């Protein structure tokens, strides 16, 4: 049993410049390898005259990317705004349910197994239902993405609440804190790390939910763009869109990860 409730967070004590330099050094090798691969691929595709439908040369993909930049940006922005909205809603819902479960043992016993059962349904299969419920617009994508992604947040928050050190809870009982005080002062701050882990998983699922929703039915968005390009067998455009999607996904994930680090710094110094 550690002498404090959490192990000390590992904070880098090197100066930021040194950190960047080290990162650049470590990234050089795989980056170089990828660059070599791309060049090799380019050469291979040209020499073997691989049909563009199958595998477009990296230069073609780059051209497609540049030519369609504004269109891609528009659709990507549309999709990502839905992703962010879904993330916020999932956080709210997941956290709220976890709080209710923690405050009331009876409700916890009644409903928690229900959520376990719901986990068994392959939730991707629910995408068309959201279209039936909310029509073919972005609301159905939002709903579907929330449905996919609030489970990890619920699981993370519950795990965080459960794992609160028994000593801290006992201290609260000795001080005669009521359930609400215990929650706000002790359980909630202590659950934040687990919640952040859940949020990261949830981000990935939000992206999948929105894109999948757009596959099933949409009039705009990056998923819709990919479907259109696929219908026209424009592989280069598909790949360009995938690159944009990955970049945006990384951006959002990076935002959430940064938020995680900021929360930890603020709370634990």
């Amino acid at each position, binding site marked *: 049993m550690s*002498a*404090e409730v959490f192990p000390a967070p590992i904070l880098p004590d090197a100066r930021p410049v040194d950190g960047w330099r080290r990162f650049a050094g470590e990234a050089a090798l795989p980056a170089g390898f990828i660059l070599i691969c791309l060049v090799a691929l380019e050469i291979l595709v040209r020499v073997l005259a691989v049909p563009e439908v199958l595998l477009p040369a990296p230069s073609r993909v780059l051209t497609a990317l540049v030519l369609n930049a504004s269109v891609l940006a528009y659709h990507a922005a549309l999709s990502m705004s839905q992703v962010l909205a879904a993330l916020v809603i999932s956080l709210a819902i997941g956290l709220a349910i976890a709080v209710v479960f923690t405050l009331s043992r009876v409700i916890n016993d009644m409903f928690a197994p229900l959520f376990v059962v719901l986990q068994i349904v392959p939730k991707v299969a629910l995408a068309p239902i959201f279209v039936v419920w909310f029509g073919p617009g972005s609301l159905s994508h939002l709903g579907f993405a929330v449905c996919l992604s609030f489970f990890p947040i619920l699981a993370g928050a519950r795990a965080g609440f459960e794992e609160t050190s028994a000593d801290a809870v006992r201290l609260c009982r000795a*001080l005669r*804190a009521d359930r609400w005080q215990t929650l706000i002062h002790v359980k909630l701050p202590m659950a934040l790390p687990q919640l952040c882990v859940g949020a990261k998983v949830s981000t990935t699922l939000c992206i999948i939910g929105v894109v999948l929703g757009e596959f099933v039915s949409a009039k705009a968005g990056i998923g819709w763009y990919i479907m259109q390009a696929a219908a026209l067998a424009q592989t280069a455009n598909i790949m360009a869109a995938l690159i944009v999607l990955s970049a945006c996904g990384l951006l959002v994930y990076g935002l959430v990860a940064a938020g995680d680090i900021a929360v930890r710094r603020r*709370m634990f110094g």
Partner: protein
Amino acid sequence: MSFIRGDGLRKVYDPGGQAVEALHNVNFRIDKGEFVSILGPSGCGKSTLLMMCAGLEDISDGSLTVAEKAMTGPRDDVGIMFQDPTLLPWKTVLENVLFPARIGRAPIEPVRRRAQALLSSVGLQSFEDHRPHQLSGGMRQRVSICRALVNDPSILLMDEPFSALDAITRDQMNVLLLDLWQQRHARTALFITHSIREAVMLSDRILVMTRRPATIVKDVVVPFPRPRSPELAEGVEFNRLCGHLRGMIEDSHVG
């Protein structure tokens, strides 16, 4: 007039249908202002007894009264220290000491002054804004003492608070506790330990507890006058008493 009084206390745990009797017929009296240690081997139920006095464990049988009232749950006038300092890592040292007051929704300003005075008396006045992870184990336990004392409790319960510390720090903490204790005599204290020397140094009386099902077999008065100082531990009388207690413990645990 006993302040804390236990009669025929019994505690039975029932994990999955197998009844385990942790405490059996425990009888004791503690007067107001007394410092009493409970001495016994690990796992014998000393902590259970302390938890019962804190109102954190139910009593299976017997009666426990504090200030002539039966014990039903946690009380306002009790300060408690666990083996683990249990500081909240996101709060500063001062905020950790103020935690009981915040929970009790008391007006903060007078408590803040008292908290700062307490931190000062344990030598942590320049660490008020530090976080727990920046402190050593001994420093964290000092913060824990301040938190236990911040509401000026009439009863102080301590569950092996110094067991996790190294020997040198432990001796320093004993001295510190003695100092704090001797400043205010109206406080009653119940202290759990498995260190004989610690018990003799700190207490007015020592209750020796057996293994499970635990009961109190010996009630030994520690005759040294207060205020006590660390040099006491080198004296002949002190060591004779320690030896005597060691013999008692061995006898009561043979077989």
